[in-house]
């Protein structure tokens, strides 16, 4: 039983990190209806940029500030150069454009910063500590707390602030939002900038866990099932989806894996999401659309 709880808690904590990546998707999807496949590439780019700047001898916080600046610029640039020109295209075209974008950013990141694997030290020792007989990784806890705070902050931002309301209005109907005087282009730029910031946080946490390397882009593949479970438009959905996927895949690997050969972490979340889709296509917290003809 204790083992079960340990596995589950480990999974849940990892799940929060998935949520963090998924959050970047939700933000952009909510505000502009774009399913941004390049979020993973942004995570890689942010982590690589930060590590490389720090390696030049720049202190931690300054490096962080510079990276944040670069990510914001990048977000704004993406919106300006790519998405604004694709405004009236079908969603699938936008999605494919972001796949192209992710290749471009990955290539760019490695052209600028090189391909070697960097370590990233956040100063948190990854030692397990004992909570009522259950061992929990200190790093996991830190990462989960940080993600949790970020997510809560964003949820509040969406619900309570004027800007947040404007964002939701834009997500609901571009034309209508424009007609009540919401400056659409500013809003989109802000959202992309925030998504860049979320990518930075995710990149730091994932980078210090896995090493800053190309494989970071693959965390995007973990985030997709999270989105499906939680619904593309829901911030809380990203959290709950992340928790389910995190706990689910760890438990499946430990308890189901031995029977079917192990290594099922890669596809289990997808199958889970797929089965879930068939029952509830709009996700846990997504909105059901009535098709009008």
């Amino acid at each position: 039983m204790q083992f079960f709880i340990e596995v589950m808690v480990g999974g849940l904590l990892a799940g929060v990190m998935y949520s963090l990546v998924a959050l970047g998707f939700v933000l952009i999807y909510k505000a502009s209806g774009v399913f941004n496949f390049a979020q993973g590439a942004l995570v890689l780019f942010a982590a690589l940029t930060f590590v490389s700047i720090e390696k030049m001898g720049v202190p931690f916080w300054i490096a962080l500030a510079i990276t944040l600046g670069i990510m914001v610029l990048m977000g704004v640039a993406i919106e300006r150069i790519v998405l604004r020109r694709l405004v009236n295209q079908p969603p699938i075209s936008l999605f494919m454009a972001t796949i192209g974008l992710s290749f471009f950013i990955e290539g760019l990141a490695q052209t600028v910063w090189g391909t070697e694997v960097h370590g990233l030290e956040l100063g948190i020792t990854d030692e397990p500590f004992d909570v009522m007989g259950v061992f929990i990784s200190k790093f996991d806890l830190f990462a989960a707390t940080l993600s949790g705070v970020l997510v809560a902050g964003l949820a509040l931002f969406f619900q309570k602030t004027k800007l947040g309301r404007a964002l939701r209005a834009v997500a609901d109907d571009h034309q209508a939002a424009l007609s009540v005087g919401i400056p659409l282009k500013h809003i989109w730029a802000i959202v992309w900038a925030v998504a860049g910031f979320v990518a930075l946080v995710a990149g730091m946490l994932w980078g210090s866990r896995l090493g800053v390397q190309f494989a970071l882009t693959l965390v995007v593949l973990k985030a997709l099932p999270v989105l499906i479970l939680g619904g593309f438009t829901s911030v809380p959905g990203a959290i709950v989806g992340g928790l389910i996927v995190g706990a689910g895949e760890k438990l499946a690997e430990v308890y189901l894996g031995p029977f079917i050969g192990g290594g099922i972490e890669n596809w289990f979340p997808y199958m889970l999401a797929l089965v879930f889709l068939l029952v509830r296509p709009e996700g846990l917290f997504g909105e059901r659309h009535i098709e009008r003809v």
Partner: protein
Amino acid sequence: MIYREAGQFKINYQSDSAILPIVQDRMFMIGLMVVSFLVIPVLGSDYFLAGILTPFLILSLAALGLNILTGYAGQLSLGSAAFMAVGAFATYNFMIRIPGIPLLLALVLGGLMAALVGILFGLPSLRIKGFYLAVATLAAQFFIEWALTKFGWFTNYSSSGVISAPEMQVFGIVIDSAAKKYLFTLAIVALLTLAAKNMVRSSLGRSWMAVRDMDVAAEVIGIPILKTKLLAFAISSFYCGIAGALWAFVLLGTVDPQAFDLHRSFQVLFMIIVGGVGSILGSYLGAAFIVLLPIVLNLIGQLFHGAISTQFLSNMEMMLFGGLIIFFLIVEPLGLARLWQIAKEKLRMWPFPH
């Protein structure tokens, strides 16, 4: 003035619905076939045949498969490589488990197996659309890759997981030289292309496009949505499966799950975006582009006598692919095929553009 259709009257519906209604186009196609089947195998160097043309043809076939599903039926798939893998492994297993089975039969059975798996993963398409479905096809990609690596039965318990393809023989002829492999591939790809063209110009193709453009209206007309979508999944996967088997048997000579990873799926998707979504010609143009781009980049790299690292070149390649995808989506969403069409229209007017 060479390319002009004035004076070519269509006197019945049959000639109006021909594949190439314009005489010049027909002559060009006949010429192309003669050159591809008779001239190239004799004159082409082994490198040209095995290193450029054969991979080009196989990738065109895969792109054609994806184009049927995504371009015509409107169902985005990120799992084409998985269906290629099923085709390759199924063909391999039919060949080693049924002694004396003809290669072509094994190939067709392999394609059918891929079609079956395609139908299975296409089932969710009834309830989910767009990128939800795209994510569902990723499930196919990861699950199939995993299953082929994990279960020894598929690889006939080979210790390394990589297996060399058995000898290929068609009608008593052993396919061993670059020219024979090229001809074998060309024949299959040409036949399947003709079949695809026929399907998309008859009622099945119209049903696919109807479902793609407006599914509610399609249903109101009486098109059975699920059946139409599943047929698209099945036929598309069949094409991908055959392409996968050719890739393994003819091109690589080994059957290896690694050859059909997510990266390959994206590659096939890029081909149809660059070449032209919903265009058979586009599948070919896109494949040619994707095959030639790295070769050209390499040549440029050689010009600098090794001053440019291969790492840099491969990063450049990624950026170029990504940039081009975006470029095409913004500037010409219908891809190279549309540019070709525009060029043809210009040529019709030439030299008097008004």
